């Protein structure tokens, strides 16, 4: 028993050392995630802020149409000077030409004799098209309604803070914190997998076979490798958390719940990595298979695109994923949640860890027996 523990420890330390001394590790597991946090945080900070405005107003031209509503439209749009810089042009063709040559970002062309109809000429999917669409609908309605007398709309403010639910954490956070949590939840899988790849390499180079011939049991070898994966994943999270706090001012919250989430998240990532290794027969393909799977999981779990822009069904469908639970948990702790408030996420991670290790170990054992036979 004591010998097995000693060998497990030696294997674990050796695997950790191999990953940490690899020249690619600082780039792959440190520079890249930090660069992603910086770039995404900086890029999406305005979008995730409740006070979003573009860095410079969009240039919009409105075509003058005899009998059209351009005067009222221009007047209404002038109230949006943080978003739009509005000018009028002589005719629709000139307006279209200015957009075609990218002199103007968008053009508005109303239909003669139809006060409630406007065509927006802009690149599909652009921010200016989206901003104009909602603004123009409101403006046209106001032009159409004109009189508001006779209809009374009373407003009653109610307290919604003590309701059955609460605003999700990803709606209450800034872009740097969101992506610090999201990218960490994504790369913790790569960190754990870096160890698994070295373990798989041992199979390819016969190092594993040699160890087996010296009496090392498969369980001991796998346990050493898995512990190393957990250790590297925890080291990764700690390093990224520390640097992101210093560089980007990310607040990770209280140490207690954060530690619980980190240990469970790292364990789940190591379990997932074990499953990948067990399922992929060729050791050379373990690395690329892991990359493919983790990128997909990262997307589904909200690490790449912010959850607030994803459809509700999408958010609900993948809330059970371990990396999503880790993201939610980190965001909650960053907002000051106590350990009890992240119990749902911790439970998800715990269940995922147990299930993944059980699956990985079962597949590995079955395949191992097949190979030895």
């Amino acid at each position, binding site marked *: 028993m004591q010998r097995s523990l000693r060998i497990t420890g030696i294997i674990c330390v050796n695997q950790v050392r191999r990953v940490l001394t690899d020249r690619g590790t600082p780039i792959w597991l440190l520079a890249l995630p930090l660069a992603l946090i910086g770039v995404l945080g900086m890029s999406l900070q*305005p979008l995730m802020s409740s006070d979003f405005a573009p860095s410079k107003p969009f240039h919009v031209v409105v075509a003058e149409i005899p009998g059209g509503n351009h005067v009222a439209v221009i007047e209404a749009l002038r109230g949006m000077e943080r978003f739009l810089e509005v000018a009028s042009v002589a005719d629709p063709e000139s307006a279209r030409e200015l957009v075609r040559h990218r002199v103007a970002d968008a053009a508005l062309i109303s239909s003669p004799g139809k006060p409630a109809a406007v065509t927006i000429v802009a*690149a599909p999917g652009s921010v200016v098209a989206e901003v104009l669409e909602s603004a123009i609908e409101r403006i046209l309605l106001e032009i159409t309604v004109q009189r508001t007398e006779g209809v009374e709309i009373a407003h009653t403010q109610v307290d919604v803070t003590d309701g059955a639910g609460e*605003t999700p954490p990803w709606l209450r956070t800034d872009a740097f914190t969101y992506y610090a949590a999201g990218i960490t939840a994504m790369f913790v899988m790569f960190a754990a997998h870096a160890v698994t790849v070295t373990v798989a390499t041992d199979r390819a180079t016969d190092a594993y076979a040699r160890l087996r011939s010296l009496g090392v049991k498969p369980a001991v070898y796998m346990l050493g490798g898995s512990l190393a994966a957990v250790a590297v994943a925890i080291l990764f999270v700690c390093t990224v958390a520390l640097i992101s706090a210093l560089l980007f001012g990310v607040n990770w919250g209280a140490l207690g719940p954060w530690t619980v989430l980190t240990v469970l998240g790292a364990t789940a990532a190591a379990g997932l990595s074990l499953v990948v290794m067990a399922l992929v027969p060729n050791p050379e393909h373990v690395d690329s298979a892991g990359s493919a799977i983790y990128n997909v999981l990262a997307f589904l779990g909200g690490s790449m695109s912010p959850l607030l822009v994803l459809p509700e069904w999408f958010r609900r469908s993948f809330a059970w994923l371990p990396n999503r639970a880790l993201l939610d948990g980190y965001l909650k702790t960053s907002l000051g949640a106590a350990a009890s408030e992240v119990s749902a996420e911790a439970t998800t991670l715990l269940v995922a860890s147990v299930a993944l290790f059980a699956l990985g170990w079962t597949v590995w054992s079955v395949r191992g027996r097949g190979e030895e036979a």
Partner: protein
Amino acid sequence: MMERLYRIAVMTAANTHRAFRTPANIIWTLVVPIVFSLVIAALFSGPGGGPQTVYIVDEDRTETSRRFVDGLASRSYQPRAVPREEAEGQLAAGSSGFVLIIPSGFEAAATQGQPRVEILHGADYTGGDFETWATAVAQALVRGEAVPSVEVTQESPNGNRAGDALAQMRTAFGVYIVFAFAALFARGGALHQEREDGTLHRLVAAGVPYGEVVAAHVASLFGIGLLQAAVVLTVTGAFGTLWLAAGWGVLALALLGSLYVAAGLALGLAGITRSATLLQGLAGGLPPLLAMMGGAFFPLEVAPLALQRAARINPIFWAMELVTEGYMYRGVSSQLIPLFVLILLGTLGSVVGIQRLRRMEL
């Protein structure tokens, strides 16, 4: 000469075949880009996420109140009559910013020309748009007129009205280009892998000039890119992506420019680095980073000005410009500037790569 070309062609074919030899490579190079292109394009390029659900508590329960609820349905709003508890629950859960209450006596008040409704909301509610719409519907109801309608049409600068489909195509291209860069960057390390495995030494010892090996490596990068593009674009096109909306010319320029720069940069990276593993790592991380900074996944207009300026040296920004200009603005004629920049960047990468690879010790 013919013999040299034949040798290069054989090595190119072998290198290209090797890139698609394993199931993992096929999944990563072909299947994942197709799935991601379709899913992400569908998720992010829809018509603004559909109408907003408005929870309505109809306490009047009359014909007039029912007509009012029905009249509120529009492109922007989807009314949903629910019991008061459920409406308040949705408000409390944050799934709705406000709740509309139609109080009892609504029909009688409407008959007198003074309908009254109530909006329950949280502290951070600003409102305005829905109130205007509800007022318009109530007025129409009182006057016995049809509910007013507004008509806002989107038109692409080149006159195309398939706005959402074009936006979807652009997003799909953004996803595809990330995988194209990733695949070519990863294959850029093939020469290093051959050196590490000893295959390169054997080839040179057998009399194959090293320059031919490098030439085959360059050709196979482009071949892999073309093969990947053909498969990904054909399959996503079959699922409705409008690759041919602006004609073959625009598509061909968009693809050739993007593949040229990707292959050139892959070559440049292969020359600068000495390890296939490092290139594999860069292939996984660098393209998504460039894509995010280049406006492939979200519009750069939302980013700070400094980041928008920094995008001018980003190849993915210019690849996306190549598509945007071609499909949404003036077609081939407006693709020339982005194409020129991409050729410049690709050539720069190729020159650096070839020079470094030529000087590399076996």
